[in-house]
């Protein structure tokens, strides 16, 4: 679609939102060309910065009128290109919608706008003795709207679950511009559950009711340093096998530790080939018992140093290295790919060995940071973009890691989402029937495929098309009446 055809909708948006809330200047538009995944870039046709659900609904209705695709974006921290804009469409940015509308401690819930950051919720309720449990590493930046779209987890989802387990209701703008409430208390289909994690393809969340979790009586964080990653892995298996569900178990390998040290000087034990962070929380007596068990297990597995944090400052010091790890890799490598795959926990040692083999075969360094408790790997594939061919080799290694995850019965994404980045892997993990069935949900919500098209699904059918073997170009596409996204 040419820019000419965007002029009229842009004018309509200005009428609806005011001049300052609509961006059409190319220099400004380009700053929105990517989210946290920078190797996919598309300059949006128009950016709008609405301040209410009504404004979003009005924008979406105009999009429907002109057949314009639209993409929602929060803070733009996603790592799968889920908020990659459309050149022929509208980017709806919720960063101005960041009011905490209500905090209701008695009912253990808060109602917030989608642009509120994940951490801001916890900060708003901390003094009441509550917090918001899902804690993605980017929690100080990422918005709750983005969390809903991606069903974000975090280090503590091992015990506490994901966004979907902590959102009680949503107000959404549907792909045809209606404002609808999805609530866990309502009878009927669990559309709330289906919407969360749909990566913006089923509409835009405009109000989020989150569950607040009572702050635990005790939190103890333990850092164990091991000679190598195998020992650390053994400790993880033994902890889980021992019937303990820690709040979090995180592991970093030597290369990831090096990066974190360079970035935030986290002062992890010297000479560690792997560090394990185990956090236990809950009633004091329970934690005390588990702590004894975990300490014993770590020592038996070969930990050469244990550090224990009991107060928030010490705990923050231990977590600092882990939480900064992704971005910190920039310190030790000019370029890198953050991968996100999941394997059954018991296959971790095998998969890590295979990743190591891949790394050596292709001459590409891989740093490993992972949520060890649930088998969620975040290999950081390092390369020098100035070196010819290095980027391609890194891509190959990164892709083969996903293949490993699929082979071992895991998933191609544990928390970063499919977005635009992994849609091509979907058909390796799911059959055509599986994808067609998911597409039924999409078509129910968004028959015109205007809401974040091109994400999650590899070249899906048009809604209304009868499933079956597809041959050649679809007649509607050929005649210019429709296009595949």
């Amino acid at each position, binding site marked *: 679609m040419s820019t000419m055809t965007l002029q009229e909708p842009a004018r309509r948006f200005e009428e609806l939102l005011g001049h300052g809330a609509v961006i059409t200047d190319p220099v400004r538009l380009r700053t929105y060309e990517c989210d946290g995944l920078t190797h996919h870039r598309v300059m949006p046709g128009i950016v709008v910065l609405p301040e209410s659900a009504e404004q979003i609904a009005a924008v979406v209705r105009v999009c429907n009128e002109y057949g314009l695709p639209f993409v929602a974006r929060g803070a733009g921290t996603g790592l799968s290109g889920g908020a990659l804009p459309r050149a022929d469409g509208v980017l709806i940015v919720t960063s101005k919608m960041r009011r905490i509308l209500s905090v209701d401690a008695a009912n253990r819930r808060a109602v917030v706008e989608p642009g509120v950051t994940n951490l801001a919720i916890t900060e708003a309720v901390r003094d009441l003795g509550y917090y918001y449990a899902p804690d993605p590493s980017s929690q100080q930046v990422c918005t709750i709207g983005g969390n809903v779209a991606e069903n974000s987890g975090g280090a503590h989802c091992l015990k506490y679950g994901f966004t979907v387990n902590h959102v009680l209701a949503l107000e959404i703008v549907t792909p045809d511009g209606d404002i609808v409430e*999805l609530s866990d208390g309502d009878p009927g289909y669990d559309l709330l559950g289906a919407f969360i994690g749909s990566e913006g393809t089923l509409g835009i969340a405009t109000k989020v009711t989150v569950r607040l979790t009572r702050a635990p009586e005790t939190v103890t964080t333990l850092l164990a340093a091991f000679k190598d990653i195998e020992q650390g892995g053994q400790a993880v298996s033994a902890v889980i096998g021992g019937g303990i569900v820690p709040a979090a178990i995180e592991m970093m390998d030597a290369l990831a530790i090096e990066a974190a040290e360079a970035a935030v000087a986290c002062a992890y034990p010297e000479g560690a080939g792997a560090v394990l962070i185990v956090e236990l929380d809950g009633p004091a007596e329970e934690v005390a018992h588990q702590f004894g068990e975990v300490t014993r297990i770590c020592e038996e597995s070969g930990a050469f140093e244990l550090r224990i944090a009991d107060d928030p400052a010490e705990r923050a010091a231990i977590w600092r290295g882990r939480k900064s790890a992704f971005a910190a890799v920039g310190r030790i490598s000019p370029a890198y790919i953050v991968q996100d795959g999941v394997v059954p926990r018991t296959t971790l040692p095998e998969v890590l060995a295979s990743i190591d083999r891949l790394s050596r075969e292709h001459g590409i360094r891989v740093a490993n940071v992972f949520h060890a408790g649930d088998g969620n790997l975040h290999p950081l594939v390092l390369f020098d973009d100035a070196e010819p061919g290095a980027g391609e080799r890194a891509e190959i290694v990164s892709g083969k890691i996903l293949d490993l995850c699929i082979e071992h019965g895991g998933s191609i994404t544990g928390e970063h989402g499919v977005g635009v980045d992994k849609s091509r892997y979907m058909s390796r993990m799911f059959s055509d029937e599986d994808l067609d069935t998911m597409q039924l949900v999409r078509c129910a919500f968004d028959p015109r495929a205007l809401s974040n098209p091109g994400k999650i699904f590899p070249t899906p059918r048009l809604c209304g098309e009868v499933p079956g073997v597809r041959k050649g170009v679809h007649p509607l596409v050929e005649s210019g009446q429709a296009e595949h996204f």
Partner: protein
Amino acid sequence: MKALRHEAEALNKTGVTIREADPGDAVAGVPPRWVALPETTEEVAALMRVSAEHDLAVVPVGGGTKLHWGGPPERCDLLIDTCCLNEVLEHATGDLIVRTQAGVTMDTLAETLGGGGQELALDVPLDGATVGGTIATATAGPRRFRYGAPRDLLIGITVVLADGTVARSGGKVVKNVAGYDLGKLFSGSYGTLGIITEAIFRLHPVPLDRRWITVELPVSGPAASGGARSFPGGLETLVAGLAASQAEPSAVELDWPDVRGGATVAALVEGTAAQGRALAVQTLMGEHGTARITGEPPAWWTAPPGEDVLLELRIPPALAHAALRAIAARELPARVRGSVASTVLMIALPSDVGEPAFAEFVSGLRGDLGHLGGRLTVLAAPRELTLRVDRWGPASALPLMRRVKERFDPGRRLSPGRFVGGI
């Protein structure tokens, strides 16, 4: 008659065991014509293909414990009984997951998992319920307060759609955001979108120890006069205290057998230090009466308060007392039981309650509590009681739900009319 024979033949050709239905197979009073007993997902798919060809209306059933829940189907040709999909396929203890066929009963599953020191942290209100039925009706028991409902523990699902398509979503890992989560959509879908044939759940280690702490709350106010003025005293503060307690109870349940009388509140703590934490809970409860600690659940724990006429009330937790007052004010012999801290309460009425009283009870409570965020659904009631009552009550996203149903089952052949808005 010829067509009928033709259909039966087609069904038999699938190789699946088919039998003629008998009156005991009725679905909420509507008798099916045949009952099929498939053993695999592929057999279910074959049955669904035949049903699609011959426009047969299909209702799935597991243990049949909740077959009288929901509206009666508009039509019902084939009952797909999942009792022979009864294999626990994979229990990976190290990964804390289980993959099971949908017809496995929750008891059998618990036995298998218990062997590995693990459990599916769902309490099942009805004996004999299957995995599939539990998911399809989204039933959970007391521990929903800590662990949630089936949708919160389900990580993978296999379903057969109306046209026989077999679809999977999720997988064997807990952390997984690839694609839409069909498991959520099928949880509580009452057999209207497809037949659940397999499920994968995340598991928890069986807690080393468990304690129940129970307190009787007497009637406050002039008990003798009965009715709305009598109400279990202190319930509000007690429940708020328990819900916020750092002793972290897994469940806080209420049993209120007679709305003119007192109530019992029981909490469960689980873990190595259960005894110590139970003492903390006992102290909290002690302000309201004599609290007792036991190693066994109270007799009423998990069980629904009734069977034939059963309602479910959900309301934000801080308003539980308002809900209970509103129930009592209706002056019917209601029995109330359920999770008071997460506020999902079951209400049972006698089966001879009578249509006018029932209709007034339902619409009256909806009127009293709707604006507070209260939602009342009729889980089970004979057809004659619900002539003037919408079993499900309002759902703001109903138009979207209809669109979902239309996509999944355009021919309206799956449990038609059983669900919200007549879906």
